[in-house]
């Protein structure tokens, strides 16, 4: 049941996204690009929180590092070659390797605190570094292009091209994560989330699996930061801050959309960005309202907004109570 729901919903949603630039104005294409980028970031956080059980409060640092790597390398360049720039988001992988190597030695609240501390360290480093623009950050006046010889085959200067590029990154990221979650590696990390003590007793050196998961998530976050930097044309420390645009919002996205699903955070990114654009026109205390919505979802829909969809659809079909959750693929939450 849930399989058919998903196997229809996802391609349908993708089709709408693919066709969108044909109808939407360039303002909305830009807004949607922002959402897609945020969705990549939130999805990477879901790998940690929703699948591995690592509640990292420092994840925004890798987003920021992805952006800064691009900005620092190309701040004076007049052409940004995509094939030179894209590998720079691997700087985030390197940072995640170091931060992860230290952090995964702790667990529970200590893990949260140590990742938060690392996140703050990165934030203040860039905040207080005059070389990298400090508080103001770095501006980029060009967008990356992919050229063969002198022929440009992918110019992100074009809003629609950027949109499709971001969409391609999101879809690729989704498929890659879905693949590794189905693979033996994915079985181990979901088991670690469920009961890490037993996983260890069964013979797995759990720290390695946690570290690899941390690095994969960090790399994807770096890619998102890279895209955000390239898209908005500036990179500043707020990328890494733990409140404004950083980790708190990302966690809200994962919770709103439904964690441990991969597609939940994508939906969550839409909900959050649209709320952020829409709520301020209602009241100047919109943040209060926003917080209230997040809390309500966490309380009443612990599996997130996307858990509503199968329920609505299944009500229309003849309801089969307690049909077992399908195996395979991004884990469908067992119905409680």
């Amino acid at each position, binding site marked *: 049941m849930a399989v058919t729901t998903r196997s229809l919903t996802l391609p349908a949603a993708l089709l709408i996204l693919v066709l969108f630039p044909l109808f939407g104005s360039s303002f909305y294409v830009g807004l949607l690009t922002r959402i897609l980028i945020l969705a990549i970031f939130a999805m990477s956080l879901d790998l940690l929180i929703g699948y591995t059980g690592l509640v990292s409060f420092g994840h925004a640092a890798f987003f920021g590092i992805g952006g800064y790597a691009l900005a620092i390398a190309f701040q004076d360049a007049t052409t940004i070659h995509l094939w030179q720039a894209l590998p720079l988001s691997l700087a985030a992988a390197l940072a995640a390797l170091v931060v992860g190597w230290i952090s995964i030695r702790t667990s529970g609240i200590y893990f949260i605190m140590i990742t938060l501390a690392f996140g703050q360290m990165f934030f203040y480093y860039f905040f207080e570094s005059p070389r990298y623009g400090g508080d103001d950050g770095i501006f980029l006046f060009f967008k990356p292009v992919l050229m063969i010889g002198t022929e440009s085959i992918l110019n992100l200067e074009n809003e629609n091209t950027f949109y499709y590029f971001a969409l391609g990154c999101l879809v690729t990221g989704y498929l890659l994560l879905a*693949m*590794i979650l*189905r*693979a*033996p*590696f*994915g*079985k*181990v990390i979901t*088991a670690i989330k*469920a*009961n890490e*003590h*037993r*996983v*260890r*007793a*069964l*013979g*797995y*050196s*759990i720290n*390695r*699996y946690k570290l*690899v998961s941390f690095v994969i998530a960090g790399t994807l976050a770096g890619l998102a930061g890279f895209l955000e930097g390239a898209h908005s044309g500036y990179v500043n420390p707020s990328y890494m801050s733990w409140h404004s645009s950083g980790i708190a919002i990302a966690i809200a996205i994962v919770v709103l959309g439904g964690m441990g699903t991969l597609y939940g955070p994508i939906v969550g990114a839409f909900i959050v960005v649209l709320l952020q654009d829409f709520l301020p026109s209602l009241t100047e205390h919109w943040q209060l309202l926003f917080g209230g919505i997040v809390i309500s979802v966490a309380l009443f829909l612990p599996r997130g907004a996307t858990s509503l969809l199968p329920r609505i659809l299944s009500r229309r079909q003849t309801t089969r109570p307690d049909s*077992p959750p399908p*195996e*395979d693929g991004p884990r469908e939450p*067992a119905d409680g």
Partner: protein
Amino acid sequence: MADTILRTDHLSKSFGGLVAASNVSLDFERGQVHAVIGPNGAGKTTLINLLSGDLQPDDGSILFNGKHITHLPPDRISQLGIGRSYQKTNIFNEFSCYENCWVAAQSRLKTSMRFFRPASRLKTVRERAEKALELCGLSRRCDTRAAAMSYGEQRQLEIGMMLATEPELLLLDEPLAGMGSEESRRVIELLRRLAENHTLILIEHDMDAVFAIAEKLTVMVNGRVLETGTVEQIRNSRAVQDVYLGEEEADG
């Protein structure tokens, strides 16, 4: 000369001021069922935890197949061929019965750092998981969520997961605790079958079961080994009757 699979040498562990295991020196013979009995709080679980690496000893050493395994982490010990089950059920509650055994069976791959092909295509793992489920008597419950099973079935799963790692030496911490008589009978039958080609270290309060399957017995009291011997020797030991068997009978 007896073939020793596991030897502990003056193994000690205390929690704060409480000495839970004190100078435990034991030899476990390959192929035998060696039961460890003793009153509550005697340190039996502590001993198992030390052997499996869940706890680090304060003092003493452990040799498995002649190699030092003292201070190795639990995952390394498991990979060497020592499997354990827990007294307090320790399973993946939200996973199906089959998935529980799957995770256990997959641990015998050279590595699970494999990212490309779906795990479900791994035939060897599937067969191992299915065999373990069949052994522990849960084949029919494959798709049932572990949390939704009866307590006795969860205890069976606990054993199944251990078996799916295909250990050579099994550490069983009260496998029968909380089981109904029918389930108990089946598990005793299973243990007897496993005993044919495994070494078992069995902690159990059910004396009938112990006398039925154990070849050797160790009695622990207050963290110390009181006596080790054959079933007959222990049955007839004055000291043991005083501190342990007598007490059992007094309880009814």
